[in-house]
């Protein structure tokens, strides 16, 4: 087990290092630099050169990179060129927004997908199952940039049940916060519901053919008990694995709803930073997102060993 852990940590370090180099090269590949955004397009070349020097951007790239890396090891991710906020501060204020979005959307997805799959898998290919299975393809065809405007038009503008935009931190006012986060979370939940439902359904169908289910049935257990206690756990592997990938993809993929609902998350901060050539912000966020991705894969792998004790790590 400890050997396994060491390998995982090594893997994390390698991934983080390669990604930081890649991000660094990518942002410096972009035409223009932060001075264009700070000074405007019409300033003189001399002023530009002075500012570049002040920001340390006139140094060779490898020098800039090693300086940045050295600072990262001291826990300093640098400061935005544009608004002088530290990258750690941007992450600390932005990340909770995304974490909350992901949690609420995944809770909704599980709350819809799991009971639905438990019901339809009992009678596969019957009308209810067919309707549910076909309509989940519809959910897969509803990307956030289509769902979000419709949700706003119907539930915010039309019915007035939810605010169209706005963000209140959770610790300031939990009720308002949740109220504001519901529409954006629903907007990104459609695809997750479809994937989770379909995976769990087909796994359940195959589990229900197993001998131990027949055994449980012949003992006279109620079908609810069989579904939840006997069938659900051995059928939840693909569901878990897909959740891992999905959550990984959502970490930086929430920018569309952040933009539409004016939420101060890191997804849109990242997009904006790329556009403004705010190199350090891009590098910092990309690094943290990649590390989070690897850690989530690790956690999912670990949950596997809990759900199925037969899965042994070396």
């Amino acid at each position: 087990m400890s050997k396994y852990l060491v390998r995982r940590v090594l893997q994390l370090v390698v991934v983080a290092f390669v990604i930081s180099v890649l991000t660094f090269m990518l942002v410096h590949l972009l035409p223009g630099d932060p001075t264009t955004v700070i000074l405007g397009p019409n300033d003189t070349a001399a002023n530009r050169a002075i500012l570049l020097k002040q920001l340390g951007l006139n140094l060779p790239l490898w020098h800039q990179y090693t300086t940045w890396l050295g600072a990262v090891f001291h826990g300093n991710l640098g400061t935005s060129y544009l608004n002088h906020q530290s990258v750690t501060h941007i992450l600390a204020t932005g990340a909770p927004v995304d974490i909350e979005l992901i949690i609420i959307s995944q809770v909704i997805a599980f709350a819809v997908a799991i009971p639905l799959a438990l019901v339809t898998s009992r009678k596969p290919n019957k009308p209810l199952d067919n309707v549910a299975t076909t309509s989940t393809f519809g959910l897969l065809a509803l990307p956030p940039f289509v769902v979000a405007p419709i949700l706003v038009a119907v539930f915010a503008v039309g019915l007035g049940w939810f605010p169209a935009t706005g963000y209140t931190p959770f610790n300031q006012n939990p009720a308002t916060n949740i109220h504001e986060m519901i529409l954006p979370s629903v907007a990104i939940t459609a695809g997750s519901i479809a994937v989770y439902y379909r995976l769990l359904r087909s796994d359940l169908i195959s589990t229900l053919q197993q001998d131990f289910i027949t055994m449980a049935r012949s003992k006279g257990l109620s079908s609810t008990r069989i579904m939840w206690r006997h069938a659900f756990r051995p059928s939840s592997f693909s569901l878990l694995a897909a959740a891992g990938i999905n959550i990984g993809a959502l970490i930086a993929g929430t920018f569309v709803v952040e933009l539409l609902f004016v939420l101060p998350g890191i997804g849109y901060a990242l997009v904006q930073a790329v556009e403004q050539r705010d190199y350090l912000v891009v590098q910092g966020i990309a690094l943290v997102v990649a590390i989070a991705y690897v850690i989530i894969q690790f956690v999912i792998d670990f949950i596997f060993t809990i759900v199925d004790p037969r899965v042994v790590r070396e």
Partner: protein
Amino acid sequence: MPDDRELLDTRASAQLLGDRFPGMAATEEAIMAVSTEHLDGDDVLARKPLGFLFWFAVVWVAVVFLAAILANVLPLQNPNFQNYSSLNQAPSTAHWLGTDDLGRDLLARVIFGSRVSLVVGFVGVAIGLAIGGTAGLISGYKGGKLDIALNAGSFIILAFPAIVAVIAIVTFWGQSLLHITIILGVGTIPLMFRVIRASSLSFAQRDFVVAAKTMGATDTRIVLREILPNVIPVMVTFSLITVAGIIVIEGTLAFLGLSVNLPTPSWGNLINEGTANNALATDPYIMIWPALAMFLLLWSINLIGDRLRQRFDIREGLL
């Protein structure tokens, strides 16, 4: 044949993968699971007929393709012609789907817009399949250091926040249809690689492959004649899912103003135009038509992929 069944099982193959590169079982399994969706689940059922919905989906995809190809020949209005005497009109005989806030004909814009989605989706996947698929096929069969290196490389790329790369490259390279297609196509390579590698790996140790080897078949022959035919169902299904995925990503890029340059219509930027500046309240048709066309296309592609998978995945255990 319990052994065969076990090897075919995606779960077992995921564990096999986990052994080769520890700690990747979860990712592998999810990708495999999403693409093949645990064949054993549906196998116990009798084969379903393809059904009305399947044919409806096929017809819709065909109609969209035909309209996109024939757009120049069809009696459509110029999609960029601004007719200021007919702004924000509802559907009528003159404009079947209505007009937008600049008086442009929405039918023409939706049809011309489909070209971007179709090219990006299908050509993009062809790129990913050609490179990632080939690499995955070989890597899964051969194993060894090459496999470990490619596998680790693809894991790293998947951990990278793709949007940064896409924005950076699009900005650097320019927003033409060709560039967007190449960028998104190349972006699917690691995903294609992993799915096809996993599938190829699950066949690499099977008896028929060992038999072919014993008879002295060359590696090329084994990959092409023994492994490829078995991997094709996964390839087709996953490719269709990916086509749908890329079309969504193009839409998202358009939403950020990073897809093809305006005024070239694409479904993404049409939807975007239809939701910006309160347009949804003044003229909902601007958004409804492209959104509906895209919804039906994505739904159709996903449904076709799923039905084909059910149809053509023959498990030996059942024979």
